[in-house]
């Protein structure tokens, strides 16, 4: 083998090499003509915004904290091991990953899921009841106020009751389920692409009791009214799409 100093020298040369790899593309469905595409503000924008009163900033940031660290309410309002951010990626701002601001600009509205006109608070309560398998904070409570404020601030400058929204919800794989679909093939795809984060059986992964990768099914995940009832599987939508469009998986 080479003398040690030579090996070091070679390492320095290699370390300064400047090849260029092809960037992994972010594959989004195209926005349709006439759709409104929103760019939700960031926390940095909030802190710089002179128009928003400091008292309101505090409430918005509390809403963000509930959204990002929902597990702090485990056992009280949340009985699954999920947090809001697990489904609504990128702080609830990211297009095609369930951005939450459209709830603030399109509600109150009639929803087929429960057959009546829903307020923003009722929509948020739905996520607590089903996706978080929990018990919603009371309407008008400080928690509801904070979450509503976070939604509404993310919608800053978006047109009210504009429903032609680009990147709303999740991308769809289409309504027709292919005839040759089979769980054996599904397992192969799962093990190759999903298991690294969500575990061999979809149980998720935790570090010292803190969920890092959310469980995909079972008692620790959403219940019957969550993704399933919300129409994910009904419309043959795929949670992989969430990861893929967030470009967590190339």
């Amino acid at each position: 083998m080479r003398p040690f100093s030579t090996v070091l020298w070679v390492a320095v040369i290699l370390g300064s090499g400047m090849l260029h790899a092809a960037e992994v593309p972010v594959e989004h469905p195209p926005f349709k003509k006439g759709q409104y595409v929103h760019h939700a503000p960031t926390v940095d924008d909030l802190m710089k915004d002179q128009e928003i009163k400091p008292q309101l900033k505090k409430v918005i940031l509390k809403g963000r904290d509930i959204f990002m660290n929902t597990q702090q309410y485990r056992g009280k309002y949340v009985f699954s091991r999920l947090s809001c951010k697990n489904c609504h990626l990128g702080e609830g701002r990211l297009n095609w990953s369930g951005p939450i601001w459209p709830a603030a600009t399109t509600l109150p509205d009639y929803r087929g899921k429960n057959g009546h006109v829903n307020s923003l608070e009722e929509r948020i309560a739905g996520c607590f009841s089903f996706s978080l398998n929990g018990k919603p904070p009371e309407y008008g409570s400080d928690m509801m106020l904070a979450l509503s404020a976070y939604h509404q601030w993310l919608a800053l400058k978006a047109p009210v009751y504009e429903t032609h929204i680009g990147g709303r919800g999740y991308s769809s794989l289409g309504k027709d389920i292919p005839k040759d679909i089979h769980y054996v093939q599904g397992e192969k795809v799962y093990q190759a692409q999903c298991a690294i984060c969500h575990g061999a059986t979809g149980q998720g992964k935790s570090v010292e009791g803190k969920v890092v990768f959310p469980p995909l099914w079972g008692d620790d995940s959403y219940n019957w009214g969550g993704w399933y009832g919300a129409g994910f599987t009904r419309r043959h939508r795929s949670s992989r799409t969430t990861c893929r469009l967030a470009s967590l998986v190339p």
Partner: protein
Amino acid sequence: MMQVYRGWLFGAVLALTGVAHGAGDPEKGKLIVTAGDGSGAPCVACHGLDGAGNDLAGFPRLAGMDAGYLVKQVRDYRSGARKSAVMSPNVDDLNDDQIADVAAYYAALDTAPTSLPSGAPGTLALGEALATKGDWDHYIVPCETCHGPGNVGVGSDFPKLAGQHPTYIKQQLKAWKTGTRNNDPNHLMLAIAGRLTETQIEAVAAWLARQDPKGGK
């Protein structure tokens, strides 16, 4: 695109086969760390008996790293899946059991925070924002989304970053960015690093290196 497709398939196979062996013996590992693989330099020459590595030389800290992660990396050096003119000749004569022993030795060592001079506040603030909030508008996920709370690592696929040497973190991010390192499962890091700017790489390495390897604040 085809290149990327084949790449992640390859990565997935590696991920599944990576940790096939049982736990190694740290006592035997210590002997190998000192003696080497019979040719080239022993581990101790660069990584130290305490696994502290060396920041300026770009030698990573190994103490307290996940054993399964270390096993996969050394095997990848041996097979050429991870390329390094330094590492490959120094580990090419180790068998699977010896690799497991070395990994068990370093994994069991205690970790102390790095002793770095205080960094530039602006750089550290940018690094902290990237590591804890990400830059979602450019599809850069926060480090801790995968590397766990405090970036202390998750299992054998997502290594500890907290307290790793900044020079090494920078080298690796640049290696993914340029494609010279591509042994990451599902090419998750290749995707993220490719989107990082030089300034972001500098900042995130500086901040991660100054965090407690055990996840304390």
